[in-house]
């Protein structure tokens, strides 16, 4: 049976309940799970932590602008093939000349084409039952890539190049496939139709407190409260690029080195705000707002 037990997160990873349910559903139905959401909401972490927690094999395919299905499934190594077939001829010639030493092909046989197929993450995952396959940031891929994946996803079948070998996986052994996207480009409807879709909502302050706690268990809750207050305030004033979880964690990484009083003072002065705000116009906007009512920040942060 496929690994279909309900997984709710581990000690170091707080899995949103809805996400956990969607993930469970995807595994039970052996469909890929497509996760979308703002950057820094833990999309990529889910399959990695799940695999780690359950001791499963993981195969990752990071998608880039030049990704193609060949890299993902398998490709044929023409260079090795050419070299080995030349070696056959060379060896025959050497034999003719009475040389006894032979050049080696490293155990590969040019007769058998499958020796020259280099397996990509998809084939490897299909061949190891109950593994986890992560296709990261699929929105970065060229437009054809998701469409090319459709066949493999819906038929659970991959065809290797040149050798024509067919890799098939039974539904029970299907790897848990997780696909993440930052929504930089729309994915084709047909593709989405074959996935279980989940959109990660941005965590609210309570959840965020837990997330911070999992990452930095030793930080004084008082610092976290003040920092979260500023963080959510920044998210609500309509910046061009709202700060994300990852940036909050980076900021806290810097803040937490000082004592509690110092840290609170640092936060109030918006020290190291560059970790949170990444565009010039946003920075100007914040400076402008702070200048306009300087009391606002100190009041907001101290009464907590």
């Amino acid at each position: 049976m496929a690994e279909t037990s309900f997984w709710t997160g581990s000690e170091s990873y707080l899995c949103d309940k809805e996400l956990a349910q969607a993930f469970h559903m995807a595994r039970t139905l052996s469909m890929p799970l497509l996760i979308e959401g703002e950057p820094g909401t833990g999309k990529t972490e889910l399959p990695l932590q799940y695999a780690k927690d359950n001791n499963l094999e993981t195969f990752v395919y990071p998608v880039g602008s030049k990704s193609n299905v060949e890299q993902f499934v398998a490709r044929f190594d023409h260079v090795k093939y050419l070299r080995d077939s030349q070696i056959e001829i060379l060896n025959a010639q050497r034999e003719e000349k009475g040389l006894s030493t032979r050049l080696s092909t490293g155990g590969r046989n040019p007769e058998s084409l499958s020796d020259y197929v280099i397996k990509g993450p998809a084939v490897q995952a299909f061949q190891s039952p109950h593994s986890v396959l992560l296709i990261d940031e699929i929105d970065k891929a060229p437009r054809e890539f998701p469409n090319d994946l459709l066949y493999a996803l819906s038929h659970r079948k991959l065809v290797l190049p040149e050798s024509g070998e067919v890799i098939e996986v039974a539904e029970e052994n299907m790897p848990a496939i997780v696909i993440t996207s930052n929504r930089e480009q729309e994915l084709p409807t047909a593709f989405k139709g074959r996935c279980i879709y989940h959109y990660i909502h941005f965590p609210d302050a309570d959840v965020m407190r837990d997330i911070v706690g999992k990452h930095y268990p030793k930080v004084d809750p008082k610092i976290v409260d003040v920092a979260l207050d500023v963080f959510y305030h920044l998210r609500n004033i309509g910046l061009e690029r709202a700060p994300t979880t990852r940036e909050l964690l980076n900021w806290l990484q810097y803040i937490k080195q000082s004592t509690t009083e110092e840290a609170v003072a640092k936060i109030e002065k918006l020290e190291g705000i560059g970790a949170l705000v990444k565009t010039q116009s946003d920075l100007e906007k914040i400076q402008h707002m702070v200048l306009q009512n300087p009391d606002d920040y100190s009041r907001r942060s101290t009464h907590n």
Partner: protein
Amino acid sequence: MLESLPAAFRSHELKADVRTLLILRKAMEKNLVKTLGDIYNVLKAIIVQDPEDIGPYTRAYYEYFLNIDIANGERLNDAILRSETFRAWKEDYIRRQNNPEDLSDELLVERFLDAVHLTTYDIKEIVSGREIMDNDDPNMKDGEVDNPQDATRKHLERMADYSDMSLEELLERMEKIAEQQKTQHSGGSHWIGTGGISPYGHGGAARDGIRVGGTGGGKMARMVMNDRKYFPVDMDSILNDNNVDAALASLKGIMEESAHEQLDVEKTIQDGLKRGGLFLPELKSISQQKLQVILLIDNGGYSMDPYIVSIRELFKKMKTRFAHDLETYYFHNTIYDKVYSDPSRRDAVEVSRLLQKDSEYRLFIIGDASMAPYELNKYSLRTYHRIKKKFKRTVWLNPEPEKYWRHTFTLQVIKQAIEMYPLTPNGIEKAVKDMNKKK
């Protein structure tokens, strides 16, 4: 099985079809669907393909399964409160209470939502939670069976377990209930209420004091209904702050996508050398990278004022995202022989100079095309014809709603010379499509 479901959800602009039903059926086979809350979750994962679908989806779900219509912009609480379903459920709920509590409407709605969105996962959580509690109880002796908590647990477990019912039976039952829902207008209390939460009308148990707090599903549905982020932007409304991004997406179509492929000589040689002299033809797909845009904006008169900001925002984004060669000019009401390179219309640029530019430029003229008839004289019209002749890909975007177009004489005349589209995301998309057809 539930044949009317795809049509009902499609009427909310969602993508539902036979495959939706097939996956739902499979989910039932795999025991993923046992409560109404499960249906919400499973269907959501299948049907929703975009955060903007979550709002319409929630609405469709409440309408189809619970007979609760949520009006545009209405809060979920209010929709529930005025529904027949809720009234029936409330009656039943209060009747079944042993010692009736005095509950406010708000609390009742909360309980109602808890009941609707209770999922198998919640039940399991409660069951295992109770188990831990029972085991931790130091006063409990071995073999003590007549424990009221134990009884509830069994009850709960039973509710979660429908293995004794075949799939066909389940489906039949669901269908029957859906049918009743439609004909009797009984307020959908068959689904929830009597005997609780199972969609199959089984004797439920999560009543009588077992509060299923914080199931989350209800919270989520409520959050979604109050947030515009989870509804699609109106593609037919005139450009405003909310749909600028949708309009930008429509504009992106201007980057022609072609499946045209060509032999990549350079790469073929390079890769061939790497392979030690084995040359395999490498193909590259040809795409139009050069994108040149001229924007002519009518910024004279009050009629255009409300739109200028959105238009500028839209094309500013366009410039940073993909059209780096973008020139903007301004005019007042109509174009004679000059346009202006600054919004206050001081620096004049001769139209004849514009006409010397590369004919590959795409022209967007944005204006309401409404003016006094004498303003649109033959010189102005000649300018439009010359522009159109030089730049084949010229379109006019009009912020005026399309239904008023026929009342404006000058607009009709200009429309004869240059194709006109409404300044809405849909209009822009259509304009871009037609533009791409012309070479």
